[in-house]
C-alpha cells in the first residue's frame, strides 16, 4: 500500500509543479497585464488621416449634403417644411429624389407625426405621398428584421406582409400624383421582393422604371437584389441582369457596380484566386473608369460612394493595394455600403480591418 502511495506521489509531483507555475503566470497577468501590442497598420492608417472604427458613420455610404441633414433634423423635431422644400427644389433629378425619399421614409418609419402634419397641411402633395409609400415599405422591413427566414417569427412575417400590402395602395397613389417620377416604382421593387412578385410582374414594373429613367442607380441596385438567388431569382439571372445593365449604360452611370454586387452576393467560397481572373480584373477596371467619369461629371451623385467601396474591396482582393487605398481615402468615414453593411454591427470594424491591411501592404512596399 505504502509503495503504491510513493509511486503516485512521484507521478504527481511534476503535475503539481506545472499547476503552480501556470497559476503564478495567471495571477501575474491578472494584476499587471502586459499591454496589447499596438497595431502598426492602424497607426499607419491614422497617420494618413483615416478614421478608426468607432468614428465611422454606419448610417450612410457617403456624407449627405448639409441641407439634407438639416431637413432631416427639422423633420425629427416635427418641422416638415424644409424637407418639403428640398424635394420641391430637387425637381426631376430622379436619382437624388429617390435617395432623399429613402432617407425621409426611414425617418418616418420610426415616427410619422411630422409626415401626418405635412399630409394634413398639403393634401395631394406628391412629395408627401412618395415619402408615405417609402415609409410604409421601410416599416415593413423593420418589422421583418434582417435575419434569415428561419430566424424570423410568424408574427414578424405577418406584420411584414400586412405593411407591404398596405404600401401597394400608397405607391399607386404616389405614382398617380406624379406620373413621371420613377421613385414610387423603385419603392415597389422592395414590395415585390418581399411579397414575391412573379418574374413577369417584376418585368412589367421594370419597364415602368426604365421608361422614366433608364440608368437609375437605386432602381438597378434594388432590382438586382430581386434577381439574386437569395430572393426571387438565381445566380444566372442576377449575373445576366447585371451584365446587361452595365453593358448598356453610358460611362458615369455607376451601373458597373452591378456585376461586382452580383459576384459578391453569390460568392460563397473563400477562394481569392477567383477574384483575380482576367474577367474580374476587367470588371474592376471598368468600375474605376466609370467612377472617374462620374466624379468628373457629378461628384455628389448617389451611388458613387457605393461603387468606390466595392472597388476598394475587390482591388484589395486583387492585391492592387495602391489603387485600393486611393478608393478607401475617397470614402473613408462612411461605411454603410456593400460589402461591409452585411456585417451589421461589425460593419465598421470589418471595413477598418480590410482598409488597415491595405495600408499595411502599401506602407511596406514604400
Amino acid at each position, binding site marked *: 500500500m505504502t509503495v503504491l502511495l510513493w509511486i503516485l506521489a512521484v507521478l504527481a509531483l511534476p503535475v503539481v509543479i506545472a499547476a503552480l507555475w501556470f497559476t503564478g503566470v495567471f495571477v501575474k497577468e491578472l494584476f499587471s497585464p502586459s499591454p496589447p501590442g499596438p497595431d502598426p497598420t492602424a497607426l499607419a492608417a491614422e497617420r494618413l488621416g483615416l478614421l478608426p472604427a468607432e468614428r465611422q458613420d454606419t448610417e450612410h455610404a457617403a456624407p449627405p449634403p448639409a441641407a439634407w441633414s438639416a431637413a432631416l433634423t427639422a423633420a425629427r423635431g416635427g418641422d416638415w417644411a424644409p424637407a418639403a422644400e428640398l424635394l420641391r427644389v430637387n425637381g426631376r433629378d430622379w436619382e437624388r429624389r429617390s435617395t432623399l425619399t429613402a432617407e425621409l421614409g426611414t425617418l418616418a418609419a420610426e*415616427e410619422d407625426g411630422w409626415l401626418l402634419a405635412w399630409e394634413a397641411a398639403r393634401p395631394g402633395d406628391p412629395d408627401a405621398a412618395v415619402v408615405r409609400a417609402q415609409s410604409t415599405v421601410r*416599416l415593413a422591413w423593420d418589422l421583418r428584421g434582417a435575419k434569415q427566414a428561419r430566424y424570423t417569427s410568424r408574427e414578424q412575417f405577418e406584420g411584414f406582409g*400586412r405593411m407591404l400590402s398596405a404600401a401597394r395602395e400608397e405607391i399607386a397613389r404616389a405614382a398617380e400624383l406624379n406620373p413621371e417620377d420613377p421613385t414610387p416604382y423603385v419603392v415597389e421593387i422592395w414590395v415585390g421582393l418581399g411579397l414575391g412578385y412573379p418574374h413577369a410582374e417584376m418585368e412589367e414594373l421594370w419597364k415602368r422604371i426604365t421608361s422614366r429613367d433608364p440608368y437609375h442607380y437605386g432602381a438597378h441596385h434594388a432590382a438586382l437584389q430581386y434577381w439574386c438567388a437569395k430572393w426571387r431569382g438565381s445566380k444566372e439571372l442576377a449575373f445576366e441582369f447585371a451584365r446587361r445593365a452595365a453593358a448598356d449604360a453610358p460611362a458615369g452611370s455607376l451601373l458597373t457596380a452591378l456585376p461586382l454586387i452580383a459576384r459578391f452576393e453569390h460568392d460563397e467560397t473563400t477562394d481569392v484566386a477567383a477574384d483575380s481572373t482576367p474577367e474580374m480584373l476587367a470588371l474592376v477596371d471598368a468600375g474605376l473608369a466609370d467612377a472617374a467619369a462620374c466624379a468628373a461629371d457629378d461628384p455628389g451623385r448617389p451611388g458613387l460612394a457605393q461603387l468606390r467601396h466595392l472597388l476598394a474591396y475587390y482591388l484589395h482582393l486583387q492585391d492592387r493595394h495602391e489603387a485600393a487605398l486611393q478608393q478607401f481615402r475617397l470614402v473613408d468615414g462612411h461605411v454603410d455600403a456593400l460589402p461591409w453593411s452585411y456585417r451589421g454591427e461589425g460593419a465598421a470594424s470589418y471595413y477598418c480591418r480590410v482598409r488597415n491591411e491595405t495600408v499595411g501592404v502599401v506602407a511596406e512596399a514604400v
Partner: protein
Amino acid sequence: MGATLRALRALVLLLGFYLLSLVLLAVLVGVDVVAFHWGHGPAVVKLGFVTVLLAVPVVQGMFMLRTPKGEDAPGIDVTEADEPRLWALVREVAAAAGTRAPDRIRLTGEVNAAVSEDPRLLGLLPGPRRLYLGVPLLTGLTQARLRAVLAHEYGHFTGGDTRLSALVVRGRVQLGRVIEQFHDRADGKVAAERAKQEQAQARRVAKGKKAKKVDTGGSGATYRMMAAVYTQYAKLYLRASLSTARGQEFAADQAAARIAGRDATAATLREIPVLSASHGFYLDSYATLGLGARLLPPRGEFFGGFGALLAARAEELEGLRARLPEEPASPYDSHPPIAERVRRIEALPADGRADEATDPALALLGDPARTLAVLEDAVLTDEVLRYGRAPGWPELLNASMASGLSTTRTPLHQALAARTGQPATLAALLEIVDAGELWQLAERLPLSAEAKAARGRAFREFARPVLHRSLRTMVLAEFSACSLLSWDFSWSEPAVARLPGEEPAAGDAGRSPQESLEVALDAALADHPDTTALRALLPSASQPA
C-alpha cells in the same frame, strides 16, 4: 422468422433483463466488499447504505413476476343476444381467416380496433380472446371496411402474434417499471434534498450568514445513472422486437386483403388516419365544447355527432386521404408508416372486388342510438355525466360561447387590470383610449421579444393585432352579456358570431354589422384612436350615462 424462433428470441431478451439485473447486483456487492476490505469509518457505512438503496429497485424489478393486469378500456360488452348481426359478421370473418372467433366483444369510444388474448403458460397455450371495437370507427367505416379491419386483427391471431406478444409485453412492462422506479426515487431524493438545504439556508440567514445557493444537482444522479443503464437495454429490446412487429402488420394486411378484398383494405388503411384525426378534432371542437360551461351535448350525441361532422366535411376529408403519413409515428412504433402499408396493398393484383357493402358499419348494431347513449355512461366520468344537457348543438354552442366569453381573460384584460388595479372592463378601456393612453397601455401587453424591442411605429404595428383580437373579444363579451350575441353552428365551418342586426348607422349603408364592427375596432386602435364609432355600436346598457 418463424413463430418458434421469435418465441426463443423474446425469451432470450427477457432473460437478458434478468442477467443485466444480476450483473448490476454483483457490481454493487463487489463495491461493498472492496470498501469494507480497504476502508473503515463512517464513509464505508454510508457507501454500504447507498448500495443497498440502489439494489432495492433492481431486486423488486426481478421479482415482479406477474405482468400487471391492464385496466380494461372503458366500454360496453355486447353479447350475441344484444348484437346478433355484429356477432355474425365477426364470426363470418373469423371463419374466413381460419381462426377462432373472440369470446367477448367490447365497444369502446376510440377510433381503434384491437384484439387481445390472455394466453396461459407464457403463451404456450391459447386463452380467451377479446375484440375491442371503437364506436367512432363503426361510425366512419362502411361494412366492407369493417370486415377489412376485423380481418387484419384476425391476421394477428393466425400469425400467433397475440400469443407470443405476452412475452414481449412482459419484458417491456418490467423494464418500464424499473426505469420508472429509479426516476421516481431520483426525483423524490432531489425534492427531499432541496427541502433539507432550504431549511439549512433559512437557518443560515437567521444567523446572519450569507445564504448559499440551493444546489441539488448531485443527488439522485446515481439513481438516474441506474435508470440510464436500463433505458439502454430497453432501447435494444424495442429495436429487436420492432422489425418483427412491423412484419406482423404487413402480414395481417395481406390477410385482410385476401378476406375483405384489395380495394376495401387499401381504402380502410387510407381511412383510418383520417378518421383518427377527425375524431380528435371532433372531440376538441364539438363533443367537449361545453365542458367549461358544465354542459354536454344531447344524450347520445357525444359520440353521435361524429357522423354528422364526417358527412358535412366529406370534401375536406377527401384532401386528407390523399396525403398519407410517410413516417412512422415514432422510431419505436410497432406499426409501419401507413403510406408504406397502402403501397404494398395497392401493389397486389386486382381481385375484381370493388369496395363493396357501402352501408355504414354502425347500422350493424340493433339500436345504434341506444348504444351511443349507453356508451356515454360507460366512457365518460361520473362527474362529467352529472353536467347538464343542452337541448341541441346550436344551444350548446351558444351557451358555451357565452360562458367562455364571460370568463375569458385576453392579454388586454391583463394589461388593463395591471394598470388600473381594478377588474378590467370595456368601459374602463374605452376611457383609457379616449384619454390617449392606449399605447402606454399596449406596453403592458404580453408581447414577443421582437415586439418589445421595437419602438415607435414598429412597436404599434406589432401590438395592433394583439390589441385588435383582444378588443374584439371584449366587445363580443359585452354583447354576449346583454344576450345580444348568437353563434352560427356549423358542422363544416368554424362558429361565426352573429351580432344583432341593428339598423346600419347613416353613412354605413350596406355595411354588415360585422364589417361595421371591424371598422370601429380599427378606428379605436388607430395611431390617433377614435372610439366614437365603437361606442355607437355597443349595446346601450354599456354606454356612459
